[in-house]
């Protein structure tokens, strides 16, 4: 009896008429049908989601209610609330193993050479936003301003959310597709996207692109970041880490 949850548990009913009177096993068909649909959805969901995104794209505020709609980004934060910084009161401190520790305002950052990039944004949880426009100061340009000391081997980033941290090796930090970004999606970086200034590490998974960038510190070794202490790969190359094989961004 235990093996037949959807079967008959009444030993009295055995002949054919009674079996018919019991009726069709609609419940079992619904469950099996849903399992089939579920499997089909997993198989073709990638293209369906793309269709859904473009169908919903014109429907303005729906991105606040439906995931993956709107601009395609999903909001992740590890804290309950993040203090808001405006462009006027924003400050970025750069210190550690540098010749000249310095604090940058938005105006200071805007006065440095600006780099523009259009690249996909790939999250380690699977979602991807194609062809996001980014603009800001390339990290190597900023490092040149403060002067990296010979002992430095890595860079540590801290978020003004008070909790989140990230890391790069110095070699990774010198790539020209790593930005201290003040613009994304064709406008200033909004608070929910990590503004007014965030990191964008183009070749790596999204958790490297720290939001609400508050501090940059040069260190003599890699100090692992928030998610890296929770099992994520430290070198987060898209398609070559975290057991994933996404197309490179």
């Amino acid at each position, binding site marked *: *009896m235990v093996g037949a949850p959807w079967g008959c548990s009444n030993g009295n009913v055995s002949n054919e008429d009674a079996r018919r009177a019991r009726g069709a096993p609609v*419940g079992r068909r619904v469950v099996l049908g*849903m399992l089939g649909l579920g499997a089909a*959805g*997993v198989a073709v*969901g990638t293209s369906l*989601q793309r269709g859904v995104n473009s169908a919903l794209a014109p429907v303005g505020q729906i991105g606040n209610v439906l995931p993956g709609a709107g601009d395609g980004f999903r909001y992740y*934060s590890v804290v*309950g609330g*993040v203090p808001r910084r405006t462009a006027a009161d924003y400050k970025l401190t750069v210190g550690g193993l540098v010749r000249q520790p310095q604090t940058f305002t938005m105006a200071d950052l805007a006065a440095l050479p600006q780099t523009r990039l259009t690249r996909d944004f790939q999250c380690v949880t699977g979602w991807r936003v194609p062809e996001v426009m980014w603009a800001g100061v390339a990290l190597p340009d900023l490092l040149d301003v403060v002067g990296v000391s010979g002992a430095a081997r890595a860079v540590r980033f801290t978020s003004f959310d008070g909790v989140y941290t990230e890391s790069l090796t110095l070699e990774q930090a010198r790539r020209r597709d790593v930005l201290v970004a003040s613009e994304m999606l064709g406008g200033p970086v909004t608070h929910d996207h990590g503004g007014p200034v965030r990191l964008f590490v183009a070749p790596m998974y999204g958790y490297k692109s720290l939001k609400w960038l508050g501090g940059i510190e040069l260190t003599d070794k890699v100090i692992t970041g928030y998610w890296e202490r929770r099992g994520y790969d430290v070198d987060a190359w898209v398609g070559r880490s975290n057991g994933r094989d996404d197309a490179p961004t």
Partner: protein
Amino acid sequence: MPLRDRRTEGMLERFSQAERWIHHVTALLMLVCLVTAALLYVPALSAAVGRRDLIKPLHVYAGFALPVPVLLGLLSRAFRADLSRFNRFDPADWEWLQRRDRRDVAYPKDGDGLPRGVVPIGKFNPGQKLNAAFTMGAILVMLGTGAILTFPDPWPDRWRTGATFMHDWLFLIILVVTLGHLWYAARDPGALGGLLTGRVDRAWAARHHPGWLDEHERAGEIASGNTPETPPKRHPENPDNPLKTRPNRS
């Protein structure tokens, strides 16, 4: 409205204690899943609450626990019997689905006896059956896609994105169906009482599940031992009820 007069005497056992536990634990886990899902997934809510490090594990544990009460419930004979009832659509179920007056009741002409639903629906109506089957299927699909998302390593990227897609959109459907389930429950104190205490009164059963009431009466399982045709009198169960030997339709 259940009638509060002498005709309502005699309660029917609708759900065993094991069945009520299965329901309540499943309901609690489902609520945890839905609330944490909304916090993780609805952009406006996740922007307001954050705390992904806390809410995500809560969601994952509740999700993996969700099928456990039902699986343990298979040890209960009453639960297995009800699963079988949920599964089968008998002729009355098809009639109920087709009739626009499916919720109507007929009042007995002689003024005695209980108002009865016009379709001889058994213990569960087709809406309840479909809801149960949908919920079962949904739990399994969410379990499968959720497992892919929780342990993504062995799966190709296309599947993971597909699993995200299924998990996202099925969530919205489950939310709607569950709210509908709560809506119907909230409007029916008799049904709510049945789930909380395990018992319903005969007037409720006659109105909503007349076929089930008849089964009970034939089986002589009602404490008062009355049939709907005769007004109940205060006397103990009649062990010599001649109808007792008729086969149970379930």
